[in-house]
């Protein structure tokens, strides 16, 4: 099957590895991700904080393109893009005047029919149906991930139907268990990493990440798994600083969910671009003889 795909800016830049992994992994699962034409930046948190109109209008242009694409579903792996696009769709469904005003500027109008999916909404049913289990070549035995959801997968600025438990989501745990890994129970799975604060309010963000890191270590995790490119980037790129500043000895690789699914299905570390992590991430997989 084919499904519309909105990568967003991050998956074409600093988290390109997530884009590459997602396409390969879903192809193996029989799903082709079809990038929508000429999409634009969703505005992320910055539009939300500074410009109410653009925070709805920027994702709306992408929604219009997706609505006109003929697909019924669109997957958005980045949590921030996912959240902003859903919020825009919901707001426009309830505000005909705003919808008209925005549609007046667009060649491809928003009709509201495309169904937005997170990456977990695609992976979880395939784990539950046994499809992922059938495709596995190597069980991820010995891997003890702390599944880290961050904020935007389950919490929204407005009422929204959330496809998982808001305070204790289980989607990643279901997928990781299907891969043969042993995800851990821990307390910080939906806590905030600080997002952009790692750049504009660094002390604050490092202190939040240190708590996340300490709990994961205390529970015996040997890695993190994430679906959000921002969370992944923060925990990965600033880990050395957190360790120095807060005296944490351990290093935990921060994997995207897609690379774990890929490795278990026999895709190579090269195909999964595992060398592009800031915190060394191939060593653990070698040690556990998974690659």
């Amino acid at each position, binding site marked *: 099957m084919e499904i519309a795909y909105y990568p967003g*800016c*991050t998956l*074409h*830049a*600093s*988290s*390109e*590895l997530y884009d590459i992994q997602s396409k390969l992994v879903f192809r193996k699962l029989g799903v082709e991700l079809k990038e929508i034409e*000429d*999409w*634009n*930046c969703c*505005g*992320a*948190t*910055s*539009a*939300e*904080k*500074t*410009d*109410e*109109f*653009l925070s709805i*209008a*920027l994702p709306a*242009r992408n929604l219009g393109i997706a609505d006109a694409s003929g697909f019924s579903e669109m997957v958005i792996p980045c949590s921030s893009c996912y959240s902003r696009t859903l919020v825009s769709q919901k707001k426009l469904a309830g505000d005909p005047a705003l919808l008209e*005003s*925005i549609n007046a*500027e*667009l*060649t491809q109008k928003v009709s509201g029919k495309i169904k937005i999916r997170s990456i977990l909404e695609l992976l979880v049913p395939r784990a539950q149906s046994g499809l992922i289990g059938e495709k596995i070549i190597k069980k991820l035995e010995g891997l003890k991930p702390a599944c880290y959801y961050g*904020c*935007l997968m*389950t*919490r*929204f*600025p*407005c*009422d929204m139907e959330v496809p998982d438990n808001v*305070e204790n989501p289980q989607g990643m745990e279901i997928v990781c268990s299907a891969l043969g890994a042993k995800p851990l129970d821990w307390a910080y799975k*939906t*806590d*905030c990493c*600080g*997002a*952009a*604060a790692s*750049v*504009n*309010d*660094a002390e*604050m963000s490092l*202190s*939040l990440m240190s708590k996340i890191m300490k709990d994961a270590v205390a529970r015996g995790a040997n890695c993190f798994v994430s679906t959000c490119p921002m969370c992944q980037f923060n925990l990965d*790129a600033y880990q050395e600083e957190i360790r120095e500043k807060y005296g944490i000895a351990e290093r935990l690789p921060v994997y995207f969910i897609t690379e774990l699914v890929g490795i278990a299905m026999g895709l190579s570390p090269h195909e999964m671009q595992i*060398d*592009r*992590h*800031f915190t060394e991430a191939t060593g653990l997989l070698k040690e556990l003889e998974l690659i």
Partner: protein
Amino acid sequence: MTTTAIKYEPDLSKPLLHEIMERSGQNLPACYQCRRCAAGCPVGVEAGVTPDRLIRMILLGDREEAMNNLLVWKCLSCFTCGARCPNNIQTARITETLKQMAKEAHTEPLLPKVAAFHNAFMKATSHFGRFNEVEFMGIYELENTASAVKRGNLKIITDEIKASSRLGLAMIRKRRLHFRLARVRNLAEVKALYKKSRQQTDR
């Protein structure tokens, strides 16, 4: 200054409350100060103001303090407060509104780097319709440096250079920094949306 307002001034309170309710879409008077939001807020303690306190401040009509407290500037829009509030109040929507009000009132932001970050992000994405990290970093550092110079604080600049070069070098090493320019082909359409937004704020 930062005295806690305990006097209720209806003349001051009503216009402020109505403006914030209208813009944020949040029903502030529903707050009964149970402080579930405070318990979950990751920045409240350090900011010295928790979401319940911010709401109280607004209900009491303290406009200055409402725009100039650290919660407004440190709020991460993590939505924990709103997810737990029994009255469905999203304080993130309130802090967003207050940041916009501070900007419109030309008030110096309490955390200039936060304001510079979001302004630079919007500026960078307005040029080509997509976010280009290198372009963004350029604009952000310029805004940041300008504001640090204005405040006569050169240490901020050296710290900033150190932090961003450490990160930038690591990103290059890991092939995570991109130098080709991402852009939207139908840029005119994206620009029309930016223009419409400006017309709306000018009105």
